[in-house]
């Protein structure tokens, strides 16, 4: 099952400390490939904790791992991902005269690709 949702990249504590250790280290790469999604949405999309999903849009695609959040903590239709390299594959170079690409609020399609 696929669905279009809004992807919000942002800072997490783990991402902030791991980037000091190095972006080539496993800790950073693991944290920046996690996707927060609320558990109601996971159930609706047939996803379980740790499932891998493909996020895609007209720019490209990336594969990330689901991490469940309480429905009261993350609204339906919104996905959260720690800042990092995976989102570069989904980010358009168009800045609409601002210099700033749409780096939060990216519309992406989410699709389950594997079960843990």
């Amino acid at each position, binding site marked *: 099952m696929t669905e279009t949702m809004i992807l919000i990249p*942002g800072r997490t*504590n783990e991402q*902030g*400390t791991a980037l000091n250790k190095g972006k080539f280290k496993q800790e950073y790469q693991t944290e920046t490939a996690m996707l927060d999604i609320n558990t109601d949405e996971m159930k609706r999309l047939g996803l379980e904790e740790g499932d891998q999903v493909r996020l895609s849009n007209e*720019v490209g695609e990336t594969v990330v791992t689901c991490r469940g959040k309480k429905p009261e903590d*993350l609204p339906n239709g919104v996905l959260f991902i720690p800042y990092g390299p995976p989102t570069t594959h989904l980010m358009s170079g168009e800045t609409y005269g601002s*210099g*700033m*690409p749409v780096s*939060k609020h990216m519309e992406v399609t989410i699709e389950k690709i594997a079960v843990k």
Partner: protein
Amino acid sequence: MSENTRIVKNATCTFCGCLCDDMELTVDIDENRITKAKNACTLGRAWYAEHVIEDQPAAMIDGKEVSVEAAIEEAAQVLTRAKFPIIYGLSDTTSEAQQEAVAIADYMHGTIDTTTSVCHGPTGMAFQGVGESTMTLGEVKNRADLVIFWGGNPAVSHPRLFTRYAVTTTGMFTPGGKKDRTIVLVDIRKTASEPVANINIRVKPGKDFEMLWALRALVKGKKIDPSIEKVTGVSLEVLQDLVERMKNCRYGVIFFGMGLTMARGRHFNSGALQSLATDLNEFTHFVVKPARGHGNVTGGDNVVSWSTGYPFGVNFNLGYPRFNPGEYTTVDTLSNGDADAAMFIACDPASNFPKAAIEHMKRIPVITLDPKHTMTSSLAHVAFTTSTYGINTGGTVYRMDDVPISLRKAYDSPFPSDEKILTAIKNRVIELTHAKRGASDTREKRKVA
């Protein structure tokens, strides 16, 4: 850890824009590393623990070790040969190094941009349209009784903003600390910052502008229909309550993050927030402040502004500075394929820029200056390893409230500073451009010498 240690007091942590200058560092002199950072937050502790002397060459060309002098020569040649060279980054280096970078852009008639363009660049654009009500964090600590965080998560991005300046700390007119303040958090989701807030407001994703405009209307005494809740996700009662608190506080401050600048609306969102603060000054003292991320990104804005008249995205192709976000900003110059050479200083665009921009980086000669091996330095034609500011190098940095702070280094590094490398590149660029352009630049050379 050896027994041979020394203490560096009042050092400044340069990880985030708080620039906490009360660090007490324990330095292992034999191992050249910081073993303890008293007063540091989790981010600061990781910053100090992980910034060691890297086992990598000081300079490389195409992945092969070369002398620093050879790399400087090649970097200067690349920049001078290019027709549309760009310099980008600068948020994690000293303002002395930033000045040298601006000078290089000027002499080579290139473009200079900082990480501000993908951070609070839209806020810089909004400032030009609606102005900025400035403040210092000291004022906030001593006076603010209403503190609003909007579209940001300081608990994980600026952990000590709460304890040093804005929430729990006590001040001259806030002796009770948190008891004397009302803390409001506006975000689209639950964040780690929520526990500090007295009032949590969840706005619908992408509806910040609408909520800000509704607040402006209420501040001006206009009627708002209760259907605003359908648009923003926030009820009219909550908006009215917030407006009353804002109008009746003694000193109000809104810290805002990239939840406003990186989303749809960008500079319109920042401008709406600035305008709201302006409106509130009819009733009380009210300020807003972007919570700036990297240690000296604010220094970048200051240096580029005082040198060129503009804060970021500045082009010197015609021999004088021109500012045009969307044209001279780095995501655009790369994604559109305009740049034919790039120098990246203390930044890692290959890990966070759009795909099209990263693809273009692979097609052009790239020069990097960074203390660590990064995704961008792996693409570099010329890569310098430089010392870490605030740990191995002194200099000046600007806190998020534009207050300059002098750095105190903890121990020496075998690697040169960004400033030293950039000064050498600048001097060689001047020689090469002089030769290229002829005698007309003699005056410039004499002035610099």
